[in-house]
């Protein structure tokens, strides 16, 4: 983690990726065999393998088919076209970021309440935990439908679902983080007769940053999942979730997988950005060296 790019991690990671890809190609042969046999007769084994790796609607698409599809739909379509992954990715990204920001704010506010107010300390946490035991797939359609009935559509309902998933790690992390100063540090503030606000801004909040960043990394990945789930039940026509759904309607497995990979790449990029921000901030604050 110290040096994300260009260190000895590269070799073990590549070896594992190599084995996954090799296994994938091998698995594609039996998975797609039935379809190949139905469409083509009298193939040599080599031809059979070749066909099963390049079917139009395979059961299991091969990595190169997915990569080709991603490249085609990312770089060779107009970005406002319904067939462009950039277009769909951007729609999902907007909802993800909006939900992430809302979730982070809500999470921090709840944590502040829990740390500073005894009543909230005893009453809020069980509800926060209960909220996460409800399957998001059950909540998401309700949020979409309820908000739709009051005329709110588009980005906001999806952002709310993202918020619902992403506030949780932030609350848990921030409660721990805001409570991380030890008794001596709090006593020290007391000897200076510091107000609650001064203690918060000068001690509790800076001390909580390592916890906050760890939570944000979990939160932003959860946000993306929330946005995608939010696109599934609404019959939305745009967004990575809608793209996956459309793929299943039409048996376009390559499209499903490419949307899946696009979502994974997006999530990895977002987490990486937060990691970068984390390293930069905590180094600057000399909390880690």
């Amino acid at each position, binding site marked *: 983690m110290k040096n994300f790019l260009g260190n000895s991690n590269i070799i073990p990671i590549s070896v594992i990726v190599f084995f996954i890809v090799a296994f994938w190609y091998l698995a594609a042969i039996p998975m797609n065999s039935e379809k190949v046999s139905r469409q083509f007769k009298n193939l040599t084994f080599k031809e059979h393998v070749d066909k099963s790796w390049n079917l139009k609607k395979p059961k299991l698409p091969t990595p190169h088919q997915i990569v080709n599809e991603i490249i085609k739909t990312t770089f060779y379509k107009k970005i406002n076209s319904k067939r462009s992954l950039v277009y769909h990715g951007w729609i999902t990204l907007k909802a993800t970021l909006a939900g992430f920001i809302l979730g982070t704010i809500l999470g921090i506010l709840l944590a502040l309440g829990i740390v500073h107010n005894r009543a909230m300390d005893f009453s809020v946490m069980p509800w926060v935990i209960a909220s996460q035991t409800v399957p998001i797939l059950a909540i998401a359609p309700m949020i979409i439908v309820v908000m739709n009935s009051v005329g709110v559509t588009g980005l906001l309902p999806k952002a709310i679902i993202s918020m619902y998933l992403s506030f949780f790690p932030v609350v848990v992390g921030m409660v721990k983080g805001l409570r991380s100063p030890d008794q001596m540090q709090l006593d020290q*503030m007391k*000897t200076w007769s510091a107000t609650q606000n001064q203690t918060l801004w000068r001690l509790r909040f800076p001390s909580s940053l390592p916890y906050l960043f760890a939570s944000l990394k979990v939160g932003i990945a959860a946000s993306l999942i929330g946005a995608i789930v939010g696109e599934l039940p609404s019959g939305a026509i745009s967004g990575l979730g809608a793209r996956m759904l459309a793929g299943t309607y039409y048996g376009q497995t390559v499209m499903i997988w490419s949307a899946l990979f696009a979502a994974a790449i997006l999530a990895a990029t977002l987490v990486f950005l937060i990691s970068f921000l984390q390293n930069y901030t905590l180094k600057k604050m000399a909390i880690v060296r």
Partner: protein
Amino acid sequence: MISVENVDLTFETNDGPVHALREVSLEVKEGDFVSFIGPSGCGKTTLLRVIAALESPTTGNVSVNNMVPDDARKAREYGYVFQAAGLYPWRTVSGNIKLPLEIMGYSSAEKEERTKKVIELVELKGFEKKFPWQLSGGMQQRASIARALAFDANILLMDEPFGALDEIVRDRLNGELLNLWARTKKTICFVTHSIPEAVFLSTKIVVMSPRPGRITDVIESSLPAKRDLNIRDSSEFIKIAQRVREGLKAGHLDEDL
């Protein structure tokens, strides 16, 4: 000026009440350097915390500069130095020293001036821009003392400030602390479990013993106000150290009975 009268303090714990202080009475005059010495559990830190209003006594009266301790705390009548330096890693040395000044709302010109003054006082000049992790343990503790001095309270409460340091560094800091005390004329209450440290520093040594925490002896030091480390070899020093040791022993004998 600090006066403690018949203070009792009992902590309620899961294993029943713990008698941390019993019938503790003490007078600290302005400009005194008072050490509290005793084994762990004798209530020396608790007594310091009572004076600082970090604990409240169960019964008895405490006054600090003619105020109840909590008012004295709010009036910022004392600076408190903890066993750990407790510097904020994200602040430089001068940033750490400015912290209490920020909290107390000093103007930035005054913050600069006071920081400069106390940094000179603890001999940390040239290290203002360093971060705590770039300093040795002894220097960190000096920065922590500077921070407690920055707002110029006339009482300094110190809870084993050199307890975590090695003996060589501790000796040097003891010498520096005496100089600082002579120059600033503060009233200092100093908790320690080292007999030489207590005898070397103090004008008055309060010997305490545990279960229940109480004062077994109060020794007015006959050593001259101006001292250096060589005084430790004087017969006067050894005599006082002996009396402290006997006081500590007496506390343990009580326990055996």
